[in-house]
C-alpha cells in the first residue's frame, strides 16, 4: 500500500507513456522528457506562487501585522492578482539600451535557475534527469547565472544597473567557492557525484531513531550551515541583498526592467532558492528518507517537500530577523572565515572516516572543527577595543 502511494507518479507517467507504446524509440524518449519537464514546471511554478504570498504573510506576522489577506481565503489568491498586475504593465525599454542583451537577460536567468532543478531526486525513483555528474551540472548551471546577471546590468545602459550587477557578480563569485567546497566532504564520503547515490548512501538508522543523514555528523552539520549561508548569498536574499537593496542602489541590475521581465527576475530568484534548498536537502538532510524508521510508510516525496518547506521557512525567518550587511563585510566573511572553515570540513570528514565511522570518529572530527573555529575566532576578532571613558563637564 505504501509502496504504491510512493510510486504513484511513476505509475501515472508509465500509464501516459503506454499510449505511445508503438511509436519509435526517440519519440518515447522525447515524450518522457516532456512529461518530466511539465511536471517539474507545474510543481515549482505553483510552489513559487504559494511562497510569494506565504513569505509576505509570514514576514507580516513576524512584524506583528497581517500579510496580504484581501484576495481570496486568507489572501491565498494574491499571486493571481500579482500575476495580472505584472502582465498588464507597460514594458519599458530604455531608448539607448542594448535591445538584444536587455531582452535575453531575464530569460537566461530564469532558464538557468529552472535547469538546476532537474537533477534533484524528489522521491524514490523520481529524479527528472539522472546524470552521472549531477552535482557538477548544478554548479555549472549556477555559474552561468553570473553571466546573465552581467547581461542584465550592462544591457540597461544605466550606471546604477552596472554597479549593482558588478556587486552582485562579486558577491556570487566569492560565495560560489564555499558553496562548492562544502559539497566536497559529502562527495568524498559517498564516492559519487550523482545525487541518487548520495541519497542512497544516507539510508539506514542507528538504534532505529537516529538517521544516517550527513547532518548528524559534526562535519556534516558544519558543512550544512556553511552551505545554507552560501545559498542565502547566492540567491541575493537578506541579509545579503546588497545587489537589490532599495535603499542603496534602487534595484541594482533589475532597475530598468518593468512588468513581466521584473516578474521573471523575481521568479528566477525564488526558483534559485528552491534549487539550493533542494540540493541542501539531498546532500545533508537525507533527501527523501524518513527521519525515524517507523515513519517510512509516508511517501518519499512528502518527506522531501516537508524538509524543503522547513528550509524555505528558515530563509523567510532570517529575512525577517536580520538587517542587511555591508558589501565589504560580506566579502571579508567569505574569504576569511567561510573558506577556511570549508576546507576544515573536508579534513574533518576525512578524520571521521579514518577514525572509524562511529563515536570515536564523531568526537575526533568535532575536535578538529572546534580547534579551527576557535583559532579563526581569535584571529578575526574585530571588536574594537574601547578606551576607558573620560568625562568632561562644562565649567
Amino acid at each position, binding site marked *: 500500500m505504501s509502496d504504491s502511494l510512493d510510486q504513484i507518479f511513476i505509475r501515472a507517467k508509465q500509464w501516459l507513456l503506454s499510449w505511445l507504446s508503438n511509436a519509435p524509440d*526517440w519519440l518515447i524518449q522525447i515524450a518522457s522528457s516532456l512529461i518530466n519537464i511539465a511536471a517539474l514546471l507545474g510543481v515549482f511554478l505553483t510552489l513559487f506562487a504559494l511562497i510569494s504570498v506565504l513569505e509576505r504573510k509570514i514576514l507580516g506576522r513576524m512584524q506583528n501585522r497581517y500579510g496580504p489577506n484581501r484576495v481570496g481565503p486568507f489572501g491565498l489568491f494574491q499571486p493571481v492578482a500579482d500575476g495580472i498586475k505584472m502582465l498588464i504593465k507597460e514594458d519599458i525599454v530604455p531608448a539607448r539600451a*542594448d535591445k*538584444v*542583451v536587455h531582452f535575453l537577460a531575464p530569460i537566461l536567468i530564469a532558464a538557468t535557475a529552472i535547469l538546476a532543478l532537474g537533477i534533484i531526486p524528489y522521491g524514490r525513483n523520481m529524479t527528472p534527469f539522472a*546524470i*552521472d*555528474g549531477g552535482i*557538477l*551540472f548544478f*554548479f*555549472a*548551471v*549556477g*555559474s*552561468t547565472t*553570473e*553571466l546573465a546577471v*552581467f*547581461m542584465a546590468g*550592462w544591457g540597461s545602459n544605466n550606471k546604477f544597473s*552596472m554597479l549593482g550587477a*558588478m556587486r552582485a*557578480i562579486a558577491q556570487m*563569485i566569492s560565495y560560489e567557492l564555499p558553496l562548492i567546497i562544502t559539497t566536497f566532504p559529502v562527495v568524498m564520503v559517498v*564516492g*559519487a*557525484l*550523482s545525487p541518487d547515490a548520495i541519497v542512497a548512501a544516507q539510508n539506514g538508522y542507528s538504534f532505529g531513531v537516529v538517521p544516517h543523514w550527513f547532518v548528524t555528523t559534526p562535519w556534516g552539520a558544519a558543512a550544512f550551515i556553511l552551505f545554507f549561508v552560501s545559498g542565502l548569498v547566492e540567491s541575493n536574499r537578506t541579509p545579503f541583498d546588497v545587489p537589490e537593496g532599495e535603499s542603496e542602489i534602487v534595484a541594482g541590475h533589475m532597475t530598468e526592467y518593468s512588468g513581466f521581465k521584473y516578474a521573471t527576475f523575481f521568479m528566477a530568484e525564488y526558483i534559485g532558492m528552491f534549487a539550493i534548498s533542494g540540493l541542501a536537502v539531498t546532500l545533508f538532510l537525507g533527501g527523501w528518507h524518513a527521519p525515524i524508521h517507523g515513519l517510512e510508510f509516508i511517501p518519499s516525496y512528502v518527506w522531501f517537500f516537508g524538509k524543503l518547506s522547513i528550509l524555505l521557512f528558515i530563509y523567510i525567518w532570517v529575512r525577517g530577523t536580520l538587517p542587511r550587511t555591508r558589501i565589504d563585510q560580506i566579502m571579508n566573511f567569505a574569504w576569511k572565515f567561510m573558506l577556511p572553515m570549508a576546507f576544515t570540513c573536508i579534513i574533518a570528514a576525512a578524520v571521521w572516516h579514518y577514525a572509524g565511522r562511529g563515536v570515536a570518529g564523531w568526537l575526533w572530527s568535532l575536535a578538529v572543527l572546534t580547534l579551527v573555529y576557535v583559532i579563526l575566532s581569535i584571529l578575526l576578532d574585530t571588536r574594537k577595543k574601547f578606551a576607558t571613558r573620560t568625562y568632561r563637564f562644562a565649567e
Partner: protein
Amino acid sequence: MNSAAFVVIAILTLAAALAAASLPKLIHAALNFAVAFIGVAAFFFLLGAEFVGLVQVFVYVGAVAVLIVFTILLTRRDVQDTGKLSWGGAIIAIAVFGGLLWAIRKTPALSIAAPQIEALTVKRIGGVLMTDYVWPLQCVGLLLTAALIGALILVMEDREEG
C-alpha cells in the same frame, strides 16, 4: 549518435564562433563566445564525455567568459573595434582551413562510424586521475596557484610609486 543533434549543434557552434570573431561590438562578441563554448560542451556530451562537457561549461562559461566581460568593463575606452577585416588574416585563416581539410580528406582511415563504448563514469575518471595522472594533477595545481598569484601581482596597483 543522433545526426540531427550533430547538425544542430554544429550550426549553433560555428555560427556563434563566427559571430564572436566578426562582430564589431565587444560585448556581443564576448557573449557569442560563451554560446560557442556551450555548443562545444554539447559536442562533448554527444561524444559521450559528459564530465568534460560539464567542466567546460563550468570553467569557460562560468569563469573565463565572466572574466572577459569584467576586463571589457575595466578597459572601456574603445569598446568598438574598427571593424575593418584585415585581408592578410583572412587569407591565412582560409589557407590553414584548406590545409586541414586536405589532410582530413587524404586519410581514408578516418571515415569510420562510432564504435560501441561503455559509459565513462566519473568514478573511472577520478580513479585514473589519482593513479595514472597524479603527477599532472599536482603540476596543474601548482600552475593554477602560480597563475592566481601572478595575475594578482600584475593588477595590483603600485602604492609606492606615484
